[in-house]
């Protein structure tokens, strides 16, 4: 039996702290409450000014910050201003409610920033309407940067960052307006990672540009749930999506439009639907890549002739992908098999007539991989020249440290000496894109092995895999060694919560190099 603490807020000004229609700044203010009324906000109803370093947590630990309430917001109902370094931790059960801001209204010609904000909690509802983590509705140019969302449930209609969006002035097309996401991360959420459908009352959003750069989304619907209407300009670069559902109109970008004027997917974006459709399920699907393409361009009538996707792909790390994208559509299926898919999502593929592929990174560099070919046996040649991996499908038995929380500090010790401590909100220590190497020495400074700490923020094997999902933004750790467990048993990884302590490299923490 769950007990719900109820704060009864007078309807006059519909907030706990600041009266309606006020202005200024609110900084380093922390609210402990469970909002249980409709149309109520924690700090202010309508507020002009900036929020910074504020937070909201539930009245009771591990409970709701908004419970059984519609159109309520943890911080502000309607904000005219920026929001920086704010967070909300707790569950939401409601309708059209949001952990932070319900509406962000930006005057035409201006823009607001939401930077370094994060939400962690469940988004529950029984109303078939969205609940969101950061903002429910934006109007005008809003730039999201370094925002993190961890959605801890699988309810439908949960959206990580923005549910609805519109141009300022509801249709004023005089200025080019932008909704942009940069370095944002969304984990979970059954509907979509970043954006839901645009405002239902807007029939045309001509002039609105969507930029999604260096973003990661793990969830059934990837980056964008649905774009309806005409005249979208979507720029996706350096983005990674994982665990996007396949087979039910759930590709990375679901677009239902009569007139897609421009879609740019550039700079090596790794899109889960592509990987799943083409590289993993390829030989058993009828042109899955083509199907994804058709989702985009189905109404144009010239899907086989238009080259929208391939024309804008510019992948540095996997040039073979470009090659295949430019191949005739009828050859795509064959072109994607065999392949090598790296742990970081990069896919290396090569023609059938070439019997081997030398990896650009050696295994000792901390690169994990899986390799498959439906047609023939494969030989993996590591760059040191060792050939000892054979088979149609090779998946190294890597396991994962899991269940971090956003605030967990991770400490890695070598020979009982602290080597590094980091957490997910310390960018100075965590380099998401670089594998850190630890050399394991004994007392006489002999090198016993090399540990690669792969800080890989988007990868997970499967929703039903034992490692579940890495439920913090940006952290997976793999330790692997080219020595036996006994040689390096003085390495430990620990979290600051004792129950997740790992004191040896057996089992989940070790991966033997071939």
């Amino acid at each position, binding site marked *: 039996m769950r007990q719900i*603490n109820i704060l009864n807020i007078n309807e006059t000004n519909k907030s706990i702290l*600041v009266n309606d229609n006020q202005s200024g700044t609110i900084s380093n203010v*922390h609210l402990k409450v469970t909002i249980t009324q409709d149309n109520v906000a924690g700090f202010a109803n309508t507020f002009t000014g900036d929020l910074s370093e504020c937070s909201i947590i539930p009245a009771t630990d591990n409970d709701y910050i908004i419970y059984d309430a519609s159109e309520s917001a943890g911080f502000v109902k309607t904000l005219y201003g920026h929001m920086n370094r704010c967070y909300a931790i707790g569950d939401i059960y409601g309708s059209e409610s949001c952990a932070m801001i319900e509406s962000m209204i930006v005057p035409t010609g201006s823009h607001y920033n939401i930077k370094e904000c994060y939400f962690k909690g469940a988004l529950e509802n029984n109303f078939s309407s969205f609940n969101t983590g950061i903002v429910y509705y934006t109007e005008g140019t809003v730039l999201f940067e370094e925002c993190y969302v961890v959605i801890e449930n699988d309810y439908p209609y949960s959206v990580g960052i923005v549910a609805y969006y519109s141009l300022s002035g509801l249709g004023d097309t005089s200025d080019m307006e932008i909704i942009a996401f940069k370095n944002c991360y969304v984990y979970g959420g059954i509907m979509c990672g970043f954006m839901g459908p645009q405002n239902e009352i807007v029939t045309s959003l001509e002039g609105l540009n969507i930029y999604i750069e260096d973003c990661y989304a793990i969830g059934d619907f990837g980056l964008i749930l649905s774009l309806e209407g005409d005249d979208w300009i979507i720029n996706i670069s350096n983005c990674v999506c994982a665990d996007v559902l396949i087979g039910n109109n759930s590709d990375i970008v679901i677009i239902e439009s009569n007139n897609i004027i421009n879609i740019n997917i550039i700079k090596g974006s790794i899109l889960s639907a592509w990987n799943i459709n083409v590289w993993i399920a390829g030989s058993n699907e009828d042109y899955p890549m083509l199907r994804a393409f058709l989702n985009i361009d189905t109404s144009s009538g010239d899907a086989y002739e238009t080259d929208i996707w391939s024309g804008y792909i510019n992948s540095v790390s996997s040039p073979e992908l470009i090659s295949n994208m430019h191949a005739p559509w009828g050859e795509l299926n064959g072109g994607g098999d065999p392949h090598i898919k790296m742990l970081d999502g990069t896919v290396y593929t090569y023609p059938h007539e070439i019997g081997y592929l030398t990896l650009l990174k050696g295994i000792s560099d901390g690169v994990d991989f899986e390799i498959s070919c439906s047609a023939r046996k494969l030989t993996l040649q590591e760059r040191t020249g060792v050939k000892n991996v054979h088979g149609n499908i090779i998946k190294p038995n890597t396991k994962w440290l899991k269940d971090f929380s956003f605030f967990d500090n991770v400490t890695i010790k070598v020979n009982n000496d602290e080597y590094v401590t980091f957490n997910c909100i310390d960018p100075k220590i965590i380099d998401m894109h670089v594998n850190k190497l630890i050399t394991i020495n004994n007392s006489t400074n002999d090198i016993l092995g090399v540990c690669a700490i792969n800080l890989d923020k988007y990868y997970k094997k499967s929703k039903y895999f034992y490692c579940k999902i890495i439920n913090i933004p940006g952290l997976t750790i793999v330790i692997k060694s080219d020595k036996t467990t006994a040689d390096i048993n003085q390495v430990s990884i620990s979290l600051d919560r004792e129950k997740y302590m790992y004191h040896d490299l057996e089992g989940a923490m070790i991966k033997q190099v071939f």
Partner: protein
Amino acid sequence: MGGEISIYNEADWNGIGEVTQHITLESDIVFTSQPNNIDLKSYTFDGQNHTITLPNISMESFIDMNYGNIKNLRIDASNKYIKYQRN
């Protein structure tokens, strides 16, 4: 404290009246009734990381501000009655 209004308790808060200088909270306050509304205007209310605990009553918001600043404050609105229970 020169140039500032120092608040130590509920009575101090309710006696603020017209704000003509910055306000600092010098200790935690547990309100037993609805706090008086204050108009902060363009001044700063510095909670100095103290906590104000709101009463277990029907609440109204209680701060006006016109380009003012609220900072370093903790608000505990959790001490409320249990309305119902849910599985």
